[in-house]
């Protein structure tokens, strides 16, 4: 079994980077930095380490560092909430399908297959369009952009997590200790909660972590198409906003891109570490 050969330091680095991002997302406002969206026009596109702006500013003078800090709240907020919500609903449906089998299983699997046959990006675009124009009941106020993204991404992720939860649960429902549990006289619900869910959870947590990375990237993609959050409000939209500045002020685009890459790398690393520990445990059975 391929032991996870990356040394422990990889794990420490990724966890510490990720906790820095979480810290910024939560306590960002209290840091002594200029507001991310007040535009200091007279020194726009300042170089890095210039006065007052450690990481410089982009073309409309908004400070990049505080932009990153505020961006972490948006990017992480959107991804964690959407994938989290999808994890709860998706794993419930998936495990239910795997354990009940029969009619429920075929309905849910069909439901998952139908949703998954439309590419993720395309499905999200359609959902965003539905939720973002003047809200459904005709009232004029438009739903906030972040909420629209969260709802759309949750709906997109439910079938992804659902199908994986079903697959993982299926691999466990066949195991003998489930038969043993039934022979002891446990009700189906108890068997599900006591035996299936705890064993499926590690795989879902790993998917959850990988999913967050995916959403952070996807959010950037939407910003480029013009469907993302308000320009500069998240890492992705910072990158999109400054993507034209590569020749004049490359750092305005490269810094957010690096932050995204580092965060996604640490998330993927942690996700893979969880998965390898599952395989490790499973290979002994």
């Amino acid at each position, binding site marked *: 079994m391929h032991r996870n050969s990356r040394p422990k330091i990889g794990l420490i680095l990724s966890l510490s980077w990720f906790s820095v991002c979480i810290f910024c997302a939560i306590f960002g406002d209290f840091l002594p930095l200029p507001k991310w969206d007040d535009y200091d026009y007279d020194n726009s596109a300042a170089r890095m380490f210039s006065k007052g702006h450690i990481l410089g500013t982009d073309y409309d003078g908004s400070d990049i560092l505080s932009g990153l800090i505020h961006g972490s709240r948006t990017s992480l907020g959107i991804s964690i909430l959407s994938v989290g919500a999808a994890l709860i609903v998706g794993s419930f449906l998936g495990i239910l399908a795997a354990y009940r089998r029969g009619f429920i299983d075929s309905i849910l699997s069909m439901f998952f297959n139908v949703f998954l046959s439309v590419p993720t990006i395309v499905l999200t675009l359609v959902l965003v369009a539905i939720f973002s124009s003047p809200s459904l009941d005709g009232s004029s106020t438009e739903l906030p952009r972040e909420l629209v993204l969260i709802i759309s991404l949750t709906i997109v992720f439910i079938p992804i997590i659902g199908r994986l939860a079903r697959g993982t649960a299926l691999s466990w429902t066949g*195991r*003998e*200790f489930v*038969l*043993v*549990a*039934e*022979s*002891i*006289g*446990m*009700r189906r619900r*108890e068997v599900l909660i*006591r*035996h299936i869910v*705890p*064993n499926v959870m590690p795989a879902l947590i790993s998917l959850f972590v990988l999913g967050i990375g995916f959403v952070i990237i996807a959010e950037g993609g939407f910003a480029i198409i013009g469907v993302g959050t308000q320009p500069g409000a998240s890492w992705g939209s910072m990158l999109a906003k400054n993507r034209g500045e590569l020749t004049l002020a490359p750092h305005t685009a490269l810094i957010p891109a690096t932050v995204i890459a580092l965060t996604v790398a640490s998330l993927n690393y942690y996700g893979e570490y969880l998965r390898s520990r599952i395989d490790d*445990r*499973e290979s*002994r*059975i």
Partner: protein
Amino acid sequence: MTGLGKEHLRQASDALLRVEDLVVEYKTGRGDMFQAVAGVSFDIMPNETVAIVGESGCGKSTLAKGVMQLLTTKSGKVVLSGVEITGLGKEELRQVRPNMQMIFQDSIASLDPHMTVSQIVEQPLKVWGRGTDQERKEKIEDLLKSVNLDPDVVGNRKSTEFSGGQCQRISIARALALEPKLLVCDEPVSSLDVSIQAQILNIIREMKNRYGLSLLFISHDLAVVRRISDRIVVMYLGKICEVLTPDQSLSPAHHYTQALVLAVPMPDPTIRRQRAVLDGEPPSPMYPPTGCRFRTRCAAMTTICAEQEPQLREVSPGQFVACHHPIV
């Protein structure tokens, strides 16, 4: 093969477990049904060990799960201490469960990897809410000690840290938690090393005597079965071909049992090695031969064997055989 013969069954009212004409059907890949257990009857007296012996594919494990009602049986009756459990509703069947418990061949897979040993052994007690926390704690320690495991060392470690033999002991402790009347052992020692096998067999024997259990012992190893059972039932392709006692097992009446006995390699060079009596392998249970299912491989086959299915009948005290030309 047995057909409807039930001559070997004893007085119904005394039997702890009585199985009559049990049939279990499986669906194959192509959707057609076949009978893994094709009408089997046997019984177990209180404190008696009945062994089911047969090669792979003869339906012995399916029979065990059928008796435990862990899979839906097509037809036939299973009566546990006077109560018929086939056809019971989900809740009624659940109520009966504590009286019969089971241990499996793959002992490691029959323990939940994320639970600790004491959680595993305690679970049956928790499910049925028996005893206070303190009583349960003592019960667990007593059970683990009775299978030669030290509760303090083993108690809160995960089951994945133990060997096959140790996991089997944990399964036994768990199975005895509800003090069942019947313990079904599905090839409990087949995948263990010889020295560990002996330890587990002795523990099972000890537990049987201490708790007054009846045992249904499933195995493919005739030598193991002779040492632990009071009555041996030999199965071939979903049916019973012979019922005999351990003493009689060296002088069987059915040709298949004889082939089984002769095929077992003897760890004693002085005994002249027998060449294989049987050739080929059992036909697929999907297309069983007509009449006696063993006829296609039997040296003593005659025309009647193909037409008429032999019934189980007594050929000597306690020995029943389903064969038109038994070895007498």
